[in-house]
């Protein structure tokens, strides 16, 4: 791992961290419930991207499976919360 690539990965992870912090501010401050769900979904996708970047950093395939799981759970939880906002219950 050359210093070029590890520096690039460091910068990328820093960008993801700042993005997740901003989304966390929106999650805590968001005026309505749908803003909070949107911010949480954004944080899910950002953590998935960070997992893929870490997989490149450590040259390992295990992080790919973690990213896949995070993507799946993010979809399920976001759509369940959107359904809850729409109807007041998840499964009817």
């Amino acid at each position, binding site marked *: 791992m*050359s210093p070029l690539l590890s520096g690039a990965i460091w910068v990328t992870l820093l*960008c993801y961290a700042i993005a997740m912090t901003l989304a966390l501010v929106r999650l805590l401050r968001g005026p309505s419930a*749908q803003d909070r769900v949107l911010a949480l979904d954004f944080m899910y996708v950002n953590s998935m991207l960070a997992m893929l970047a870490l997989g490149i950093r450590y040259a390992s395939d295990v992080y790919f499976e973690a990213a896949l799981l995070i993507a799946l759970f993010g979809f399920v939880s976001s759509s369940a919360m959107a359904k809850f906002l729409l109807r007041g219950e998840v499964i009817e």
Partner: protein
Amino acid sequence: MSAAVPLWVEAITGLLLVASGLFSLTGAVGLIRLKDFFRRMHPATLAYTLGAWCVTLASIVFFSALEARLSLHVWVIIILLAITAPITTILLARAALFRMRRAGEDVPPPLRNGT
């Protein structure tokens, strides 16, 4: 490990990764700065599409060079996101529209046959 990957592959990987980070950061800045919920839905999509595409392409380039064969399994992430992100967006937009109508805010009225 480091000798296995040539420098230009590392350059391409790093460039794609930094681009993905900047796209994601732009999306977050838009998420925090825009005024309206429906406006805030647009910049968040930047991370779902361009951010995920860039980091996946970087991963494919890096692992293909590392294992000296075409390694495309990270593509699954893009396919999964391309299927799931529109569903989540549509559900969330419909929920927001429904809630804003109930709160009496200024949103488009429903069509005659249903929503």
